[in-house]
């Protein structure tokens, strides 16, 4: 959903100044219980500065923005319509390119005594842990993890006819092209997209140290949508547990149709069900004292039709990262992340028919020094280095800086 930049600025101004609707008296005697808030709002402004990078495209997103070179405004609001029902939304503008609404949903808690909620609309993803803390200070470094940002060579609107078509696009996820489907110039998809959320219904239940969530949505982990251009629903779920020793563990899985039906319709009917993306993920977090350590691993499998045989049954990826933050002073912190994104092997005629990964594997390391100037103002500087086994640029480093302000 897109609106004009003027609307975004107006929304920011209005929401930033919204007082509590329930507290609208001029004078008030002290009483025992404060009035509940009806409307809450917040905003976040971030400026990430880095090189242009129009050669290697290591940090480009499915919105065709460089994750290391973006000015972003986010405005979040919650309207408590009833004691246990709220409408929540977020408006976001990146680099002044209009306004998107990546989140807009209703949240209902049917029973006051049970931590059970139902959310419907454009809803938070349940896969992994990073997508729910992708922005702002919850991201311990500056860049996004490869699993959630790096553009693979797969496109939902265009497909390779042969394995060789696929291998020719190794390391070209910023602009892959294929003979079947759309000829438009666009990007590939990440393994799991976080820049937009999927549309559907989810339920979450929490009791003690256990949390469970399940969702039925329209898109797929790589291709969340508002209007579904594919056939079939996505089913996703997550189980999380808070373990003794300050450890949080999560297991999540999802399966959905990722290929647009306009492309599948070009194939014989018995091939059209080869359109699923299946994801299994594990995430862990341990935070004690000044340390915060996190790790995630995601295995994803894409099925797609090929016109020639032999063809691979599926294309898979294995990706993961480990990151840590150490706060050595109330104002100062250091953080780092190491990552890997690997792809399964296929055989065509290219490369003498030898098994070759269907996209170029990528490794990444990033280190960041952060300074908390105020409670809600943070400045970071860091360096990120990438290696890729393919594409026209095989390795590249990027100095980066971030200014983040929220209220």
């Amino acid at each position, binding site marked *: 959903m897109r609106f004009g930049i003027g609307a975004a600025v107006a929304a920011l101004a209005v929401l930033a100044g919204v007082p509590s609707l329930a507290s609208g008296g001029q004078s008030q005697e002290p009483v025992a219980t404060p009035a509940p808030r009806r409307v809450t709002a917040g905003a976040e402004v971030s400026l990430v500065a880095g090189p242009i990078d129009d050669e290697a495209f290591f940090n480009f997103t499915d919105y065709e923005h460089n994750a290391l070179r973006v000015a972003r405004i986010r405005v979040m609001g919650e309207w408590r319509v009833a004691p246990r029902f709220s409408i929540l939304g977020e408006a976001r503008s990146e680099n002044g390119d209009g306004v998107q609404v990546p989140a807009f949903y209703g949240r209902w808690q049917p029973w006051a005594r049970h931590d059970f909620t139902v959310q419907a609309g454009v809803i938070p993803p349940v896969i992994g842990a990073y997508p729910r803390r992708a922005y702002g200070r919850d991201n311990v470094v500056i860049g996004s993890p490869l699993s959630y940002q790096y553009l693979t060579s797969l496109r939902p609107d265009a497909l390779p006819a042969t394995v060789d078509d696929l291998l020719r696009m190794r390391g070209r996820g910023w602009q892959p092209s294929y003979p079947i489907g759309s000829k438009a110039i666009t990007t590939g998809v990440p393994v799991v997209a976080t820049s937009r959320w999927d549309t559907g219904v989810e339920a979450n239940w929490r009791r003690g140290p256990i949390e469970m969530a399940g969702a039925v949505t329209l898109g797929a982990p790589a291709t969340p949508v508002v209007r579904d251009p594919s056939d079939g629903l996505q089913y996703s779920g997550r189980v999380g547990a808070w373990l003794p020793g*300050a450890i949080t563990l999560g297991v999540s899985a999802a399966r959905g149709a990722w290929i647009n039906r306009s492309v599948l319709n070009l194939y014989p009917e018995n091939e059209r069900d080869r359109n699923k993306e299946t994801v299994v993920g594990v995430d862990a977090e341990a935070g004690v004292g000044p340390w915060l350590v996190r790790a995630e691993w995601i295995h994803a499998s894409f099925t797609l039709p090929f016109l020639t045989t032999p063809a691979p049954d599926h294309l898979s990826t294995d990706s993961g990262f480990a990151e840590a933050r150490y706060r050595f002073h109330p104002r100062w912190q250091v953080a780092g992340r190491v990552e890997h994104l690997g792809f399964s092997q296929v055989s065509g005629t290219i490369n003498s028919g030898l098994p070759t990964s269907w996209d170029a594997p990528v490794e990444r390391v990033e280190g960041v020094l952060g300074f908390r100037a105020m409670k809600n103002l943070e400045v970071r500087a860091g360096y990120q280095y990438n290696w890729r086994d393919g594409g026209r640029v095989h390795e590249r480093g990027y100095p980066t800086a971030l200014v983040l302000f929220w209220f």
Partner: protein
Amino acid sequence: MPGVLPRLSVVACGLLLLAAAPQSLEGTIRGRVQLAAVPRAAGRPAIAELSASTADPIDRRHCVVYLKSAPREAFGQLRTSRVRMDQRGEQFVPHLLAITAGTFVEFPNSDTTFHNVFSLVRGSNGFDLGRYPPGRTGGHKFDTPGIVPVSCDIHSHMSAYILVFSHPFFAVTDDDGRYSIAGVPPGSYTLVIWSELGHADNKEISLGAGETVEVDFRVTR
């Protein structure tokens, strides 16, 4: 007159003891604070959460009333102790704490989620307790008089204030806005109120021996 002297001695001793007994010279300042300022909404909505927020609302209406200056002897009477600022319902309880310098404040985590208490105030009152799980307690000793804003690094909607004094003549208002500062030596003082909701003019007062003075405030934004 046998027996008279011993009796006189008993009476004399009794008079001496009475003379030596502490007289109630100290007075009390008390009153009520009326809030004409209303709290604004606070806290960012948890857009990315899978469940509804369980955070309790913050009770911002308590104030601290204190003497701007105190008798010299008051500074030697500081009694340091350990006090508690709990974390429950994703809020600090109490939201406002007034202590004397040297007091150790414990921050127990009584929630079901992690917390990370910190303050960026300059000097020795600044601290970061790091993350700790439910059931654990962190703490910090506040040595310097001043205002210490307290926050949670994980929950940006959590906030609290600790006011650290170099003398014991202060009081936090109760739920009805009432306060009482007892044990104040006779003298002339400036009475000050601190509220995060607004301000009120200082009050000049004169307190006689054993006297109780009523001083009310009205806080406006």
